[in-house]
Every structure is written in C-alpha cells, then in structure tokens.
C-alpha cells in the first residue's frame, strides 16, 4: 500500500517527513489519524486580495486591485499574503492555518490549487523571509523573478507557531478572477523516538512521504517554533554508511522530544 492516498495525503499509520534544507534536518511524523478523513476539500474561494489594495507590476509600477479577489494584469503581491479565515472562530483571527505550539499533536498537510493555474505562487517561511535563492544566496528569487516559483499549486506542511507567507503573481496581461482550493489533512501525529526506525525512515528503508519546505535560511523563528512545539528542531540526515553515529545522535535527540 502506498504511503499517500489518491489525494496525495499521508495515510493513517504512515510517516511524513518534512525536510528543511537550511538546517539539514528533518521532522519525522507518524500519522496516527486524520481528523478530517473524508472531508479533505476546502474550497477557499477567491485569493485574499482586497479591492483598492496596491500591487506591483512586472513593468515596474503599481496597480490597484479592481475588485475583491481579482488579480490585476501583469502584477504581483509586494508582500506575502496570509489566508484570512473564511470561517469564524479559528484559533488565529488573521491566519486560518495557524496553530499554536501547544497544539503539537495537530499538523496541517495541505495542497493548494489555484485557478487559473497560470497564477504563480511562492512560499515564505516564516512570512517575510524569502526562502528561494540561486547560487547560494547570490540571487534571491521572488515571485516576480524568471524562475523560483510554482505555477498553480504548492504543497506545504504547516508547523504550529509559525505564520507562513504566500506570494502570488499574475503574469498574463488580463485581470483575472481567482479561486483557491485546498486539499488538506488535519493530522493527529506523534514523533517517532526509536532510533533504528528514524534511521530507516531517513535513509529511505522505511517508506515515507517527503515534503521539502523552501528554506535557504534557517530563521530563529523556525528553530524556536519547532523547539517550543516539539522540544527539538529535527533529526539530522545521515549517510546510510554512518549508521552507528546516526543511532547515537537519534538516541540523544529523541530524549528531547515532547511527549
């Protein structure tokens, strides 16, 4: 049986690995249960663009959003957006995917699909930090760059305690009505602490679904959110030939994991 289901979400009792390139560490989760099993679709609606909001244009000027959710031609968001809650009563009133560190047993795994698919998107982790670059940090790539973004879809795992920023761009010369749909799992998770199992997962011996978050710079905010939520900031990745060293390290790191 595959690790992910037809929606691309991790099946119950399988492993989800979230890798952060900048720290060279991975968070390993066992999905104990999916709280929203069977109800994974979230038709968010238009992008959170507000009439009158100012966007930058590819030609170097600015343009005003003509109506809520309408993306002006040849423009992009000057600063990352946050998904405003579309229901009342969310934990955070400004960010519908935000969870507090105390809710460490919950983990959102989501896939965003944009309409039209020609819209560009890029993730900031945390909001405000550009995480895509070329040739080390020589060139920081933004949603308006020639590359370094995705068309129409993006997959992410939302760590508690962090606000993620979402950049968007419309390179077509047309004002576009927009629509966003999420396919998400509100996973109830635990963190494996058996060193051999962790080694097997991170060396690929035990199947797992890997999500690599864009992370060229390891912000203190990320490290502290992970430590506050889980008690540590990830398991190091080791070469399979360095098993003993890895097991020793995982034994030590696993002691920090919050129960």
């Amino acid at each position, binding site marked *: 049986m595959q690790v992910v289901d037809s929606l691309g979400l991790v099946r119950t009792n399988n492993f989800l690995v979230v890798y952060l390139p900048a720290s060279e560490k991975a968070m390993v989760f066992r999905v104990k249960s999916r709280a929203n099993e069977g109800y994974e679709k979230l038709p968010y609606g238009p992008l959170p663009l507000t009439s009158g909001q100012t966007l930058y244009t590819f030609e170097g000027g600015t343009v005003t959003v*003509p*109506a809520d959710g*309408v993306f002006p*031609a040849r423009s992009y968001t000057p600063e990352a957006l946050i998904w405003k809650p579309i229901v009342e009563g969310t934990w955070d009133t400004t960010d519908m995917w935000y969870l507090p560190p105390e809710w460490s047993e919950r983990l959102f795994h989501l896939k965003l699909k944009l*309409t*039209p*698919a*020609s819209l560009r998107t890029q993730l900031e982790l945390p909001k405000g930090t550009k995480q895509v670059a070329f040739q080390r940090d020589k060139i920081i790539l933004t949603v308006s760059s*020639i590359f370094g973004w995705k*068309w*129409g879809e993006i997959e992410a795992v939302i760590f508690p305690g962090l606000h993620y920023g979402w950049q968007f761009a419309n*390179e*077509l*010369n*047309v*004002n*576009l*009505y927009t629509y966003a749909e999420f396919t998400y799992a509100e996973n109830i998770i635990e963190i494996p602490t058996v060193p051999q199992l962790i080694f097997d997962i991170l060396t690929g011996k035990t199947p797992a679904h890997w999500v690599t978050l864009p992370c060229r710079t390891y912000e203190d905010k990320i490290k502290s959110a992970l430590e506050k939520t889980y008690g540590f900031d990830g398991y190091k990745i080791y070469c399979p030939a360095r098993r003993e060293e890895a097991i020793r390290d995982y034994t030590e790191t696993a002691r920090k994991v919050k129960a």
Partner: protein
Amino acid sequence: MKELLVIYGETDGTATTGTLSLNSDLFQATVSNIRIPRGAKAKIWFKKISGEAETLFTLKYTHDVTVATITWLNLQQEKLASKGEIAIEKRRPSILRGLTGNEAIQITWTQPTAAKAYAELGLELTDEE
C-alpha cells in the same frame, strides 16, 4: 500547469474590419490580445465561429507585444462563407509557444459587409508537452 480557457469575442456589427475584444469566464475585463507566459504553451483545441454574414477570422501571433510597432503574423484563418456556424475540434492542437514571455495572440475579422459575427477559442495554457 494546465488551464483550459474558453475565449470569446464578437464583431461590433458596424465596422468591416477590426480586432476582437477577448473575454472569458475568468477575465474581469476584455483584452485585445493574450500574452503567453515564458515557458508556457498556448494550445488551441477547438474553434467555433458563427455570424450573420460572410466573415474571415484571422488568428495572429507576435513574438513581441511589448514593442511600439508590433509585427503580427497571420497563423490561422477561418472563413464563414455566409450566415451560419462552423465548429472545428482538433485531435491534436495547434501549439503556440511562449519563448520570452512577450509572445501574444489576437484575433481579427474582415467582412465585405459589416454584420455581427462571433468567435470562440478553446485555449489551453500549459507547461506540459
């Protein structure tokens, strides 16, 4: 990336030549041409034209829509010989490429006598083969 847009335009009924204002369910305002993003392809899967009188629709393509004087190339033509309707479905689409991101397409019309005529295009924007 894959998005199929149904693009629609109609003649104004008073001029014998012109460029269609293009619209679609996702367009908030009409445009006279559509740019093709760099690295993307515009695939034309179907065309439908109809009208009250003889009309020649021409699909035009330019390599650079950003210059002051745009050079439009005639790529495809569909002619309505008289009042009626033509629908063309393609098993293999026409492909127009976005190489620099400055490429664009437009549709023009020519009529011996001005009349209302309509054009519909199944245009897929994609980065896939």
